């Protein structure tokens, strides 16, 4: 589904990604862990071109998205993204947040889009919040709306950029539950996270990044119990 080869990213002189190779198979969940500043989020943002890679290729279903001729908007409809800070549109109701892209991008009829939105809200457990504004919701509720908003486009794969890092601890669970149910349904997901419990339980593979490079890429039961790289070991010692 995703094939990243020799990906480099510079911010000015700062070499953030140093030759990343990564493959994500359809229907699998890959969690990316590592210290802050290691380039996890930048890697994720390169997969839907919120950051433009300096060098290297990103293929999604065989299509090279780094090809300048590739229609970026078209690509992005196939890649759902959930942000750390939710980024809901504050001037729209929950319903309008969810129906905006299906109507404007997919050309879906308003009525169909609203029906879809109600179905998705039910799925994330927020049926009664359709007409609320984002600021009237808790962080956990906002993030669940953001997930519903991404789901509404029916993308092929989902990118989660530290989806629970901005949440109060007691609200983390409700968001992770929604993500777990998505994983169980066979959704392809790449998740940058500090939730080691989630990675251990849900991920098919866990990728450890440090200083712009992937140091280990293993199934969770191996990476968490028998890390080979000393930096992986010391990172896990600190967070577990």
């Amino acid at each position, binding site marked *: 589904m995703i094939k990243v080869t020799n990906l480099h990213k510079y911010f000015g002189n700062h070499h953030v990604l140093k030759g990343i190779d990564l493959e994500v198979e359809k229907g699998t969940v890959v969690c990316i862990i590592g210290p802050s500043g290691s380039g996890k989020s930048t890697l994720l943002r390169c997969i839907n071109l919120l950051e433009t890679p300096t060098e290297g290729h990103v293929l999604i279903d065989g299509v090279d998205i780094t090809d300048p001729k590739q229609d970026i908007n078209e690509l992005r*409809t196939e890649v759902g993204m959930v942000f750390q800070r939710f980024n809901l549109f504050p*001037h729209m109701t929950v319903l309008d947040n969810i129906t905006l892209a299906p109507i404007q991008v997919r050309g879906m009829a308003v009525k169909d889009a609203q029906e879809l939105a109600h179905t998705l809200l039910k799925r994330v457990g927020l049926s009664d919040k359709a007409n609320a504004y984002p600021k009237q919701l808790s962080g956990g509720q906002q993030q669940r709306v953001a997930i519903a*908003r991404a789901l509404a486009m029916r993308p092929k794969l989902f990118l989660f950029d530290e989806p629970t890092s901005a949440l109060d601890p007691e609200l983390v669970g409700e968001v992770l539950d929604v993500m777990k149910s998505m994983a169980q349904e066979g959704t392809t997901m790449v998740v940058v996270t500090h939730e080691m419990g989630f990675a251990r339980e849900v991920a098919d593979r866990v990728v450890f990044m440090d200083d712009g490079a992937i140091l280990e890429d293993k199934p969770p039961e191996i990476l968490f119990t028998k890390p080979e790289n000393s930096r992986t070991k010391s990172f896990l010692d600190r967070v577990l």
Partner: protein
Amino acid sequence: MNLSLVSEYAGYILQGAGLTIVMAVGSIILGCILGTLLGLMRVSASKPLSFISGAYLQVFRGTPMLLQIMFIFFAIPQIYNMATGNFFNWRPEIAGVIALGMNSGAYIAEIIRSGIQGVDIGQTEAARALGLTHHKTMQLVILPQALRRVIPPLCNEFIVLLKDTSLVSGIGAKELMYRSRSMGVTTYDFVSFLVGAAIVYFCLTFILTQASAWIERRLAVSD
């Protein structure tokens, strides 16, 4: 001070107030159109557009308003004459509205720019990540949020503009300031007529302030 003298000429003075309002509305409309255009150019990715907008801003902020009014009224017809050999003259009201509109366009452009840039970058990222085009992101996500932020500074700009119409009296537009001064000259009672004009200006700006506060409250409801 003799306010009965003012009331005797109230019709004459209020006609001037009418012209003041018309000029203010005209220059606000022109200023908003120009300002929005220039503001969008300023934040656009295109270097030349951004540069043109920046240069415009520098020129109009860097020279006095009265000079700009006089330049458009006196100098533009001269330049036209030099270029084509033909003659034309502005009415001072028209030249005044154009000058005021062009001047406030520069300030409104800055208001629009800061309004747009004040919207969290995450909003753009979320909209683009959903596949919305740059244009639709601006139209549906960024500008509606920017609008709420620009109402107070925009209202401030309108108040400045309303008062600055008095400068157009300098080229002979018979608006409120012009008429009050000329009545002062005629009757030797400057106090009455200037106080009268001040009261009218104050009432007009007061209405604008109240309207702005009302709009802000309305928008805050859905924010």
